[in-house]
């Protein structure tokens, strides 16, 4: 059985079918990209994986265990952490306290949580901002904080939701470096991203979706040259 697998997941919001029979899997330490035009259901898939929304149908497995009916906090405790596309900093807490809040998942000791949080801030290049309130951060730093906070829970699988959106080219390069660094430490990653540079620079496999349905999945080069993918992004004319 795969390290992580979603099997024919479906999500309907009333009459609207947001996700329809999507399946994919990844191995331990693998990085895969999830692409698709706006509104195609990428973030919804993340919300289904960590059970912000219950599935309409389908199954999700993590390390051989079915997790799709577990509450969100248990899924995180099992080892799946996520970031949010619309960042959710804990605004009136310092950057350090934000990350400590996550680090407390595996320790009850304040000093251990602080030590772990400092390590992670160092790793994510946020160490100099540790005493600032999170609401004072720039968007690039807020995106970094999302990653740092997710890492603080010691995940084995990390869901990154558009961590490079709104970043300038230099910051995007830095984001790619951070993602590669995380991947090298053995953490599996699913990336949702519009910036193809990020996807192509990091992913070993791509799943392309549109209108909640899978278009294709496979090797990055094949997927981005797939006529249906080009059609979904640019229209019939270019396919």
């Amino acid at each position: 059985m795969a390290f992580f697998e979603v099997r024919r997941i479906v999500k309907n919001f009333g009459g609207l079918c947001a996700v329809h029979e999507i399946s994919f899997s990844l191995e331990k330490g693998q990085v895969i990209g999830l692409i698709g035009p706006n509104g195609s259901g990428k973030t919804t898939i993340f919300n289904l994986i960590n059970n912000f929304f219950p599935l309409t149908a389908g199954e999700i497995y993590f390390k051989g265990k079915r997790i799709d009916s577990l509450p969100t906090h248990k899924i995180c405790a099992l080892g799946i952490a996520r970031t949010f596309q619309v960042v959710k900093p804990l605004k009136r807490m310092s950057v350090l306290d934000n990350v400590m809040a996550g680090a407390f998942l595996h320790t009850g000791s304040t000093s251990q949580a602080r030590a772990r949080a400092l390590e992670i801030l160092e790793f994510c290049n946020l160490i100099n901002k540790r005493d600032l309130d999170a609401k004072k951060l720039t968007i690039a730093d807020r995106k970094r904080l999302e990653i740092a906070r997710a890492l603080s829970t010691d995940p084995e699988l990390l869901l990154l939701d558009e961590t490079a959106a709104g970043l300038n080219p230099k910051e995007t390069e830095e984001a790619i470096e951070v993602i590669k660094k995380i991947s090298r430490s053995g953490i599996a990653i699913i990336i949702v991203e519009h910036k193809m540079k990020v996807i192509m620079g990091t992913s070993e496999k791509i799943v392309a979706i549109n209108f909640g349905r899978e278009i294709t999945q496979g090797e990055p080069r094949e997927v981005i040259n797939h006529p249906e993918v080009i059609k979904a992004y640019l229209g019939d004319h270019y396919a």
Partner: protein
Amino acid sequence: MKKVLINITVAIVAILLPLVFRAPYHQHILITILIWAALGTAWNLLGGYAGQVSFGHAAFFGLGAYTAGILALHYNISPWWGLLLGPLVSTLISIPVGLICFRLRGPYFALAMLALGEIFRLVFINWVTFTNGAKGIMIIPKITMKLPYYYMALGLFFLSLTITGLLIKSRFGYYFISIREDQDAAESLGIPTTRYKLFAFLPSAFITGLTGAFYMNYIAFIDPNVVFSLANVSVMIILVVMLGGVATLWGPAVGAAIYILLSEVFRTRMGAASVLAFGILVCLVIMFLPNGIVGELDGLRKMALRKMNGGEKSGLLRG
């Protein structure tokens, strides 16, 4: 070290205070301040740190008071036993209330709690055979001197402060504040949010019930419209905390002191117009001191520190 010295000084002043103010009226005011400081600190744990604004803490205050009162009324047991049973009853009631109401967020939770307080008030007015209804319960207090009550109230406030202080410095504090700042983010960080809201609620209800039981023993008369009052208990607790500083350790105490002293001045000078004066005061606090007195002072202190060191200290444990 400096902090320890300040704490010791505060404790000594608190212990000596009633020996300086010997008039029963003055001692009564001091006791009232301590009661509200204890209530405010307990409310602050749930409402300030965990961000679950309760408009119904009168329910727990009244339950504590009535537990003590009913022991004396029906069972001829000393109402002092209420200090033991009252908080237990409040805590027990808070568990199902929490499990149900914590499904609601923000203003919906506040409204559900407001309804809770009112439900208890109406039940206790109408359940005449058990509660004596609107006639209330009167006891003959064994102790008539103010001084012992002062030290009991001081102990009560100390307990409230200690519980809150210990909790917020630990993992609990980080989790409470995370839940307040963003419940979804907190949940995604592996925090069981409903459970931790309950962990904030239980001690809060416990202290509130304990204070209610103490109130029964001290004032020696209660009726549902007093102890389950929306305006004079539930909302007043919130005003005390807002004035002093939401989510600051000492804010509720400072708020209680200023509130009670001002209300005595307003009441003696202006009579019924004192309510108006308070309304204006609340507006001014919201407009100019949105973080409360302790909160604003802390902000100033932090700014000064930053200017001096060029760096800011961890912002979680304010006050």
